[in-house]
Structure formats: C-alpha cells, structure tokens
C-alpha cells in the first residue's frame, strides 16, 4: 500500500499520539430534576475526573472521553484524550430522552472504533457510563436491545454501566442494562467519589495486558447496596 493512497493527517490526534485508546462515553442526565445540588455535585465530579486522569501519565494519553447530555440530546464533547478533555459546567435543561441519547451515543462509539481501525490505533473494550435521576421520557426499547446485544458475552462490543441518582427508576434501568451488569445506585450525591473510582478503573484498563483480568477498585465509596 503506498502512502499516496492515504489522506495524510485525516485524524491528526491519532497520528500524533498512537497509544492504544480506552474510550469512555459519558451519558449524563441534565433534566430539570437535577437542578440545585445534584448538578453542582455532578459538575464537581467532572472536575475530579479530569484532575485524576491528568495525574496518571498513561491514562492521560490513552483514556478518551466523550460527553453527551440529555435532554435535549447534546454532544458536549467528541472523543478526545483526557489531556484535551475540558470538563464543562453543565446546567439543567429539559426532559429525559434517555433512549435516544443511548442510541446516538452507541453510534458515536462505533464510528470512533472505525476511525481507530482506519488509523491502525489499538483500543480497549470501551466503557459507556450513564448517570440519571429519573426515567426515560422517550421510547427506550431500541436502546435496551442495542445495550444488551453489545454488552454481552458473545459480542463484548462495550461495557455499559448505569448509575441511578436518588429518584431514578431502577426498574427501567435494569431493563436497559445487560443482566450481567445491573444498574448501581449512587450514595447521596457522591459524584466526586464516583468519578474518582471511574478514573482509577479506566487507568487500570488502559494499562492492562493480554490475559490480565482488570481488578476494578470496589465501588463502595459511592454506591449504596
């Protein structure tokens, strides 16, 4: 294959940094019910996330973060390495089109994997992290089917985690999540602890080697039984 067949620098970030990527998609509920302390703590959590990833030299170059909020469904940031990720200050917005957000997010993730493959950049099994304090206000059956098909023993396309904040409909979340990965309940508003756990976990995945089971830190700091 000659170099003239390729578009040079079509994905400059993947050329400049060819480290294998550990993609993490955040799907965050910013509906009206999150207003006040919940959204403040969520924003603080995002800052903790960025700080902790930056303190880990390998995670900084390998973990890629994309951030979407709902509703309305918005892509706040596309996939980029942690060093380039700027935590936004989120405000509360509208309703909770969780189904649509999940579908769009998973499609964005597949597109990113295709780009990695084109660039010859390796990647780890992606994480999708949904945080919500409510229930979907849109149709979510298609989203559930996509999650269960992708986060399965057969396909292992991604790992889908859902965290319910006080008031969340855990039954609906259980119907969306893979049976092997039931939704977790957030202890109070411990978003900082949650994001600290997430950055450690991603750091572990990002440096894992073939044949190694990644031991995740216990989520006891932020999840309630």
């Amino acid at each position, binding site marked *: 294959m000659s*170099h003239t067949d390729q578009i040079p620098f079509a994905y400059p970030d993947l050329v400049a940094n060819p480290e*294998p990527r550990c993609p993490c998609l955040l799907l965050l509920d910013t509906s009206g019910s999150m207003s006040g302390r919940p959204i403040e703590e969520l924003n603080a959590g995002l800052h903790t996330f960025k700080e902790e990833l930056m303190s880990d030299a390998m995670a900084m170059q390998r973990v890629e973060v994309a951030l979407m909020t709902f509703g309305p469904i918005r892509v706040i940031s596309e996939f980029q390495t942690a060093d380039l990720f700027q935590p936004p200050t989120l405000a509360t917005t509208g309703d909770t089109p969780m189904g649509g957000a999940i579908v769009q997010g998973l499609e964005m993730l597949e597109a990113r994997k295709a780009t990695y493959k084109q*660039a010859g*950049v390796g990647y780890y099994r992606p994480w999708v992290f949904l945080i919500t304090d409510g229930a979907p206000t849109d149709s979510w059956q298609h989203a559930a089917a996509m999650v269960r098909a992708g986060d399965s023993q057969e396909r292992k396309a991604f790992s889908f985690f859902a965290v319910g904040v006080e008031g969340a409909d855990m039954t609906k979340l259980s119907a969306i999540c893979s049976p092997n990965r039931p939704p977790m309940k957030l202890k109070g508003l411990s978003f900082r602890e949650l994001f600290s756990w997430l950055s450690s976990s991603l750091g572990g995945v990002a440096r894992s*080697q*073939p044949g190694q*089971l990644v031991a995740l830190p216990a989520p006891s700091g932020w999840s309630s039984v």
Partner: protein
Amino acid sequence: MPGVGGGEVLIAAVSDGAGTAKRSEAGSSLAVARFLQDFGAAVAADPSLTSIDRLFADEWLDSVRNEIAQLAAEEGNQRQDYACTLLGAVVGRSGAVYVQIGDGAIVVAGEEVGEYNWIFWPQHGEYANSTNFLTQEQTAETLLFETGPSVDEIAIFSDGIERLVLDLSTKTVHSPSFRPIFKWLAGTEPNDDRQPSPALIAYLGSDHVNRRTDDDKTLVMATRAVAD
C-alpha cells in the same frame, strides 16, 4: 550452533508470560526451552529444514501443551495458569522456519538493503489487551507457521516493543527504527558470555522507550553481517 556442511544455524525463541497468569513464567521458560531443544534436534538431523514442516510444528505444540498440562496437574493448577505467547525461528544456510502464537513479532531483513519485513502480524483480537496463548484451546488454528529463504538479519520481540518498530496504520515494519540497531550489532564481537547486552538493556530502559510503553519488553536480535 555449527551445522552439518559447515554452516551455522540460528535457533531463537521468545515467550511472553500472560499478565497475571500465576505460573506464566514457568510456562514461558518451558516453551522456550522446548523450542530450542526440539527444533535444535530436528535441524541437527536435517539441516535442509524440509522435515520441519507444519505437521512437525503442530505435533510439537501438542507435546508442549501436554507437558504443561502435566506440570499443572502436579502443581495443582490449571493449564491456563501457564499462559504465554511463543515466537520462534530456525534460520539455516538455505532456508528458515518460523512459528508464532500470540502477539509480538519476528522481523527479518528484506530484499533491499536496510528494509525489514514482518513474518506474522501480531495476533491481537479486537482489543489491545487481547491475544492468543499457546495454552488455550484451538491452538492448531492459532499456530502460525511459515517457511522462507535464509536471512542474514532477524529480530524477535514481544508486544512491548511493537509500537516502537511497527507502523500500525500501514501494517509495515518501520525500518528506520531497526537499521541503527542492526548496524550496531554487526559491529560487535560475538561473545558467549550469555549475558544480555548492556547497551540493549540501556536502550530498553531508556525514557524514550518507556514513555511509550510500560509493558514487559523482550528483544532478540541476530545478524550474520559484519560491519565494514
């Protein structure tokens, strides 16, 4: 090792133990020792290498897996506790034989001076932290076997070195990474002290290398060339 007919034959192998497989060090030592011993005996008996074929390699692999299974039983472990990759080469006067299971790669001098080619592309599944091990089932399909002409320069390395010397987007060897090391190697005196080269250790331990990877790094290189 001197071969019949006066030519020297090179037999080299690299095995990388799997992550936290608790006895992976034993598995990889065994795999390398058996490769050197059994392929060594085969080439001593047949310097043309023609009897070292796919069938020989498959049967050899079965026998090594059985030995690991026996060791596992003795030690009260599972076979996968000894999981490791394997890359091996036999280079004779008129031909060469290569085998591989897993990641890492074997690279040899190409036809053009200063150009290098890979024998097998590293075996990775979809994800960067997945590969094949010689202890797993279905190794008859995952064992890669190739024969080729004899070569004067060869390098065998584990996955920690891949990103330094392989261009993943074009699936080629990044030859400029190898040229200076082979040139340096050609200028050294052969020695039998069985110690790893201090210069290579320094290179593999350097910031330049370790900024890019914290995987284990294994590299074996050989050359018949002599520096001018």
